[in-house]
Each structure stands twice: as structure tokens, then as C-alpha cells.
């Protein structure tokens, strides 16, 4: 035992007996486990409740329209006839347009950051791009209305018409708002995600891959495009899916520049509507339960679309982390 002058007791501390004290500690661990587990389960509860509420509150329209909801073009609150097709069309078109613009742009920038730029420059630019990702949607909308729309009306639109005016997608009147404008604004919003994730994925490609290609006499571009990017293929795909999922759900910026017209048109200059936009615009104006139910059903559709996409995206990104990106 200790021979020092300040001998400490090894038995009971001041309060209750040793057994009780120890019991309290034991229970403390159990209690902590239960409490934290409850909060974790709360997340499951919230999510299940979310799906449940979407399902229940869209009951009216689901039972009335059934599956025909998905291919009906009409959206007529007055006669109570609602169809999702114009919105699905608009959502898909604007998303595709945004991807067509953002993917090459984003991938190119990511390649620059991962392969060419010195590390510090790359980190600095990546930092700024992360900031870009933090800009609120409504701010993009603000800039969309006052800058992109006039730009489309006065310069971009006429330019495209002059060069590619024979294509059906570039025909018809151009008011500045429409699918193309929305697509452009969306593209700017999703490009930071593509760059961020792709850059990280490209950085994980092992050096020896690059060096092997260069050693065989490839130019830097060839090494990058033909060896490095394919290696990171799955992860890059994952980033694209993630960006697409975001594009589908974007509300404010799109609402402000798409023209809010539930019609299906071939021309990209035509005004359109997306699922998120119609919910944002008409939810508070919805008279009647069927109207509201239809809007909520649209919300359910949007939820499902993003759910599937996000799930796929995560799988792809996990696959990259594990398998080094190349298909096995």
C-alpha cells in the first residue's frame, strides 16, 4: 500500500457505498446508450413520417387519377383536372440542359485543379468554389432575373438563333425566360458540386497510373483523358448523379426564370414549369383539396426521383472509394 502522507482510500468515496456508486456508473453507460439511440431513432421516425405524410396527403389525387397522372398534360385548376407530365418534362429538360453545360465545364475545371494546378493554387480555387456552392438559391434567382434573362433576350438568344436557328430546340419566340435560361442558371448552381467531388476523386487516382502513361510517351492531356479520368470514372459518374439530384430539386432560382407555363414545348426558348416551381408558386393559392393533393403528389414524385438518384450516386462514390474506381 502507499506509504505517502496523503494516502487515499481505495474504498468508498464520500457519498453512498461503493456498490451503489458503481451501480450508478454502470447505469450511466446504459442510460447514455438509450438516450443517444433514441435520438438516432428520431431521425428514422422523421423520415418515415415525411414519406407517410406525402403519401397520405396525396391520397385524393392518387386515387382519382391513378397512373394516368404521369402522362396527362393538362393542368387545369378550374376544372379540377391535373396531370404531372408538363412538370416532369420541364424538370427533366432543365436538368438535362444544366448537365450538358455543367458537366464538361465542371469536369474540365476539376481536371485542371487535380492534374495541372500546383497544390496551393488548386486548394485556393477549390476553397472559392466551395463558397460558390454556399450561395443561396434565391440569390442565383435574383441574378437570373436581372442579368441572365436580359442577356438571353438581347444577346444569347439571337446569337443561338443565328447560328443554330434551324434546330427545333432553338425556334420560336424568345422572351428571355424559359427552359434554356433556367438550364443555364441551374448549371451554374450545380457546377461547384461536380468540380468538388470530381476533383477529390481524381486526386485519389494513384500516381503510377499517370506516370505509366507519360512513360509511354503520352502527352499530359492524353494521360489525363485516357488513363486518369477513366480510372475515376465511377466517382465522376457519382458526382454527376449527385449534381443531377440537386438540379431536380432546385426551386427558387428556377421559379424565377422559367416563365411558369405548364406546357410542353420543343423549343428551349419557350417558358415552362418544373415540379418544384409549380409547388412553390401555387401551393398557397391552391383552392380545394384535389388541387392541394395534386401538388403534394408532385412533391412525392420529386422525392422519389431524388431518392433514387441520390442512392445511385452514393453507391457509385462508395464503389470508387473501395475499388479504386475501375470496374472489376
Amino acid at each position: 500500500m502507499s506509504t505517502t502522507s496523503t494516502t487515499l482510500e481505495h474504498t468508498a468515496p464520500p457519498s453512498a457505498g461503493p456498490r451503489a456508486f458503481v451501480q450508478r456508473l454502470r447505469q450511466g453507460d446504459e442510460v447514455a446508450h438509450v438516450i443517444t439511440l433514441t435520438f438516432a431513432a428520431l431521425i428514422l421516425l422523421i423520415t418515415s413520417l415525411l414519406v407517410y405524410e406525402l403519401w397520405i396527403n396525396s391520397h385524393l389525387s392518387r386515387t382519382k387519377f391513378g397512373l394516368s397522372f404521369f402522362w396527362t398534360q393538362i393542368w387545369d385548376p378550374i376544372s379540377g383536372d391535373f396531370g404531372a407530365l408538363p412538370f416532369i418534362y420541364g424538370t427533366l429538360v432543365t436538368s438535362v440542359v444544366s448537365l450538358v453545360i455543367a458537366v464538361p465545364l465542371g469536369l474540365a475545371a476539376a481536371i485542371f485543379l487535380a492534374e495541372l494546378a500546383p497544390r496551393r493554387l488548386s486548394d485556393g480555387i477549390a476553397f472559392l468554389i466551395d463558397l460558390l456552392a454556399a450561395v443561396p438559391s434565391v440569390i442565383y434567382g435574383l441574378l437570373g432575373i436581372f442579368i441572365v434573362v436580359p442577356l438571353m433576350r438581347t444577346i444569347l438568344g439571337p446569337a443561338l438563333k443565328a447560328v443554330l436557328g434551324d434546330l427545333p430546340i432553338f425556334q420560336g419566340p424568345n422572351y428571355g425566360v424559359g427552359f434554356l435560361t433556367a438550364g443555364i442558371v441551374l448549371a451554374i448552381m450545380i457546377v461547384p458540386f461536380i468540380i468538388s467531388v470530381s476533383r477529390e476523386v481524381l486526386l485519389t487516382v494513384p500516381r503510377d497510373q499517370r506516370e505509366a502513361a507519360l512513360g509511354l510517351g503520352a502527352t499530359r492531356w492524353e494521360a489525363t483523358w485516357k488513363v486518369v479520368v477513366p480510372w475515376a470514372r465511377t466517382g465522376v459518374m457519382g458526382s454527376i448523379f449527385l449534381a443531377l439530384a440537386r438540379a431536380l430539386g432546385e426551386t427558387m432560382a428556377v421559379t424565377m426564370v422559367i416563365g411558369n407555363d405548364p406546357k410542353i414545348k420543343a423549343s428551349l426558348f419557350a417558358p415552362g414549369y418544373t415540379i418544384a416551381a409549380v409547388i412553390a408558386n401555387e401551393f398557397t393559392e391552391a383552392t380545394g383539396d384535389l388541387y392541394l393533393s395534386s401538388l403534394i403528389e408532385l412533391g412525392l414524385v420529386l422525392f422519389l426521383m431524388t431518392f433514387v438518384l441520390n442512392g445511385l450516386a452514393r453507391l457509385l462514390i462508395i464503389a470508387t472509394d473501395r475499388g479504386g474506381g475501375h470496374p472489376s
Partner: protein
Amino acid sequence: MASASQGNSAAAEQVARQMRLSEKTSASSGKEASVRFEIADLNFYYGAKQAVFGLNLKIPKNKVTALIGPSGCGKSTFLRTLNRMNETIRNTRVEGQILLDGQQILQMDVVKLRRRVGMVFQRPNPFPKSIYDNVAYGLRINGYHGRLSDLVEHSLKRAALWDEVKDALHKSAFALSGGQQQRLCIARALAVDPEVLLLDEPCSALDPVTTAKIEELMFQLKDSCTMVIVTHNMQQAARASDFTAFMLDGKLIEHNETSKLFTTPQDPRTEAYITGRFG
């Protein structure tokens, strides 16, 4: 008359022999009485893999016992069973008896056990708190209130760190050098006044000067504290310990007083290890 005196001297011889015998037994029974840990038939498993095989060992009280052996021989694993730290790893199993002063530690409350059996780790692991709070931590969580400052000072003195930090107790522990951090961890462990201190290669991350300081520390502490030290440094074992146990592939090969084990090892494998033929 000659036979009587012969008988007398024979009797005297016998008595003397008896006395020497009893001396020996009292000496050895004294040694028996001052055994701190008694380990019998210890088997340890990581999942399906067995790491310690049928280990039997008595660790004497208030002495320094060194555990030596090549990497992977199970010495750290064994050390960690003594304060049940292996229970923090999933899927481990302990079989056998480990008695601390006659009590089965596997049936004891683990928190109580760890107050009596402290541990110092391979790399210094001070908490991201002040020096004072580090030493006081064990005291606070074990419910000791009252004159913490005195106890903190006392522990830091026992760890030979007081003079270096007495004016900077509120500073972060990370402001200290590696050797000082390790002594801080020793002070932290000593603060709850453990009966046993387990040291798992405490000097492997430190320079020779600091190592010497810590060995000196161990020498001063052992009167009040039984110590078991795992070390891969045989010179350290030879210098700093009273008893040494040599392990190989999870088995205890030999255990003896340090001087005897290093000069006249009984087992050829011990000799091979000590002379550096493998390691």
C-alpha cells in the same frame, strides 16, 4: 560418552539445518505473502485466434517486473489483461485466473480495478486540457473532492515533473515536450494512488535522456507501487527491473530475478533471445 557427544553434534547439525530450512521457508513464505498479482492458466483470444497460452506467473509486490520478448509474443496483450483494458476491444475472451491480492479481477468491478491498477501507454496521451486538469482528471471522475491541488502537486512530485511545471499548471498539456508529456501521464496515473502501475513500452517514443529519467522514476516509485513494464529494450529490462519474464509466441518461457535470468538463463530460447540471435 563419545557417542553421546556425537549424537549431540548430530542433533545440533540437525537443528541448524532445521533452522536454515525454516529461514528459507519463512523467507519464501514472506515472498509468498508479498505477491501482488497471481496469474494462473491464463488463455486469451482475439476472436478465434489465441494470443496467450496457459500463462502462470506471480508478480511480486513493490518490485519492478519486466516482460520481454520479440514483437507479437503477447506481452502487451498479457499486460492489458491485468487491468482489463482488452475489454474495450470487441470479440476478445479471457480464460483463467487473475488474482489481485487474492481477489479475482474478472469478477471485480472494472472501474474499481482500474483505480487500483493504473496504466501508462506507449505514446504519451495527455488529454487536450491543462496540465492541472490532466492530473486532476482521475481524481475528479472517481469522486474525490476536497484538496485537489495538494494531490495534484504530490502526484507531479512523484513523477519528478513538479519543478518543471509548477508555474504553468494552467497551460495546455500539449505545450510540454514528449518526455514531459509521458511523465505527465505517469503523474496522472499516480494521482489516484494505484497499487500497481502497468507500463506498456513507456519509453519507446522517447530519447535516451528522458528514458533514463523515467527509469530513475521507476526506481523511486517501486517502494510504494508495484510495477510491470513491457519493454523491447533488453538493456532497459536489465537496468531497471528486479524480476524479468520472457515470453515467446504467447507462452511464458522463463521467469526469474533479473540478474539471474540475464546471466544464467535456464531455457535455450531465453538465451537465444537475450544474446540477440533473434528478436
